[in-house]
């Protein structure tokens, strides 16, 4: 017997609905942004890695040349 799409039978267990908390949402979003910011900071540190640290390369247009 097929059930209509979009329904979950009561017999199928699922985790009980938990108390919604916007604070936790904010914490996890902030954690996400902080982690990526940390990765960005690592990149900044890597730029300065010596003793033969080199600056950023000049942007050059290849004019559609082979991308190698």
């Amino acid at each position: 017997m097929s059930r209509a799409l979009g329904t979950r039978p009561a017999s199928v267990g699922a985790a009980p609905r938990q108390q919604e908390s916007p604070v936790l949402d904010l914490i996890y979003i902030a954690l996400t942004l902080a982690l990526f910011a940390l990765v960005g900071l690592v990149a900044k540190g890597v730029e300065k890695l010596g003793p033969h640290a080199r600056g950023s390369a000049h942007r050059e247009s290849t004019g559609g040349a082979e991308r190698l």
Partner: protein
Amino acid sequence: MDAATIWLGVLPVATLLLVLALIYRPLGDYIAHIYTSTKDLVVERGTYRLIGVDPRAEQTWQAYLRGVLVFSVIGVLFVYALQRAQAVLPYSLGLPAVPEGLSFNTAVSFVTNTNWQSYSPELTLGYTVQLAGLAVQNFVSAAVGIAVAVALVRGFASRRSGTLGNFWVDLVRGVTRLLLPLSIVAAIGLLIGGVVQNVNGFTEVTTLTGGTQVLPGGPVASQEAIKELGTNGGGFFNANSAHPFENPTPWTNLFEIVLLLAIPVAMPRAFGRMVGDNRQGYAILGAMATIAIVSISVGSWLESLGLGTAPELAGSAMEGKEQRFGILGSTLFGGATTLTSTGAVNSMHDSYTALGGMMPMLNMMLGEVAPGGVGSGLYGMLILAVLAVFVGGLLVGRSPEYLGKKLGPREIKLASLYILVTPTLVLLGTALSFAIPAVRSDVESVSIWNPGIHGMSEVLYAFTSAANNNGSAFAGLTANTPWLNTALGVAMVLGRFVPIVLVLALAGSLARQSVTPSTVGTLPTHRPQFVGLLVGVALIVTALTYFPVLALGPLAEGLV
């Protein structure tokens, strides 16, 4: 084992090797063509216009990295929001919003190509989240990995350009020209093999004994194709590829193994083509194949021995394995999925014998470089190649050069930092789980179902899987807790993107150099000796890093 069992094991392996050998050149050449072509497809031009990208603009490594990070952080936030809004989304099968910690873990997991799942998909996620969130990430996270690998290859191949191509172009091409077409073909193959594809939701059926059972359906074949091709591994069902709707027969089992190995195996060919020396591709492939064949052989042998009280009483180590796959069909899949970054499972690694269960863990600890994830396997092995050249140079007194690029202090520092990132995350995460009293209490009372040495192995496996972006699990661990959802999420983000920073920085550094002609003083990197050196470096680095913790976990369990 009798002769028939061995033959049944040999036949799939021989078929697998033959198929991979046949696709190595054409697929590798095609991948190289994708990323060196100067022509854009109509759909690609439309996409570039839509997102405001000039496809001809070359990027420095910093700009390339910015693209990777911006694209990925948006992906995490979008998948997080989708899960939190699930209750009001259509086609959600009546399922509620996903809790915050689990949403974070899942969003991070799929964006980092890990696909660690702290939940039962069929009981937690409706079709909208599965398709619009997770399936999309299955494509784009794989494309990001390939793009980073291609950027590193361009670093080796370029001559003082200082640029690595364009991230957005590489991302779009990876999806439109490689992953999407192959996924369509693969999905049709899986459908023919009996994998289900529907939108029926849940179906109540009457069993043979007269009872009722609720069977989940879903668009499984289409998800399964990219799950394997993109070395993602996140199952549509909780049992993953052990579920008969995802992987019904030994034939589909072999087909799925081919799918998850196809692109990683072909990447060395693309590398060889792009640097203009196919022999370099064969050398990298040789190192990958050596490690893979030895690992899978040892793992299969250990499981076939059936050591341990329960397997010896039962007559074989079949606990946690599907009858239709047997021991060899399970260990072949288990080896392939952990040697790549796939993490799909067709057997429960937690139920393997102590030493047999160590092998999937060891595969991940090797850095998943044999052949590794799509893209990540190649760039991981190239980093090891840089270190091998450096070590070889020290041994014989030759200047360290690889593919005509000098490996100075900066390059070696970047490569060295790369191999430290994931071990640090693995060991720190495992240690913190037991060192902080409140966390330890939670982990021991809630997460670990097998206390003692095996419980420690379960936590070690979880952090090894997360930090290496594999996604497979020792199934006995309950990971849907605030600590593990958050800590594993952090390990996944840092384990994915910090190495990418170092790879792109190395690529940028190499791209600024001109190519030095090889001389008699140059270490040849296309010969068997170098393959041996590369394998040796990979094994020694892993052994030195992880032996102590393995001695506390699976080695202690297996040898006591």
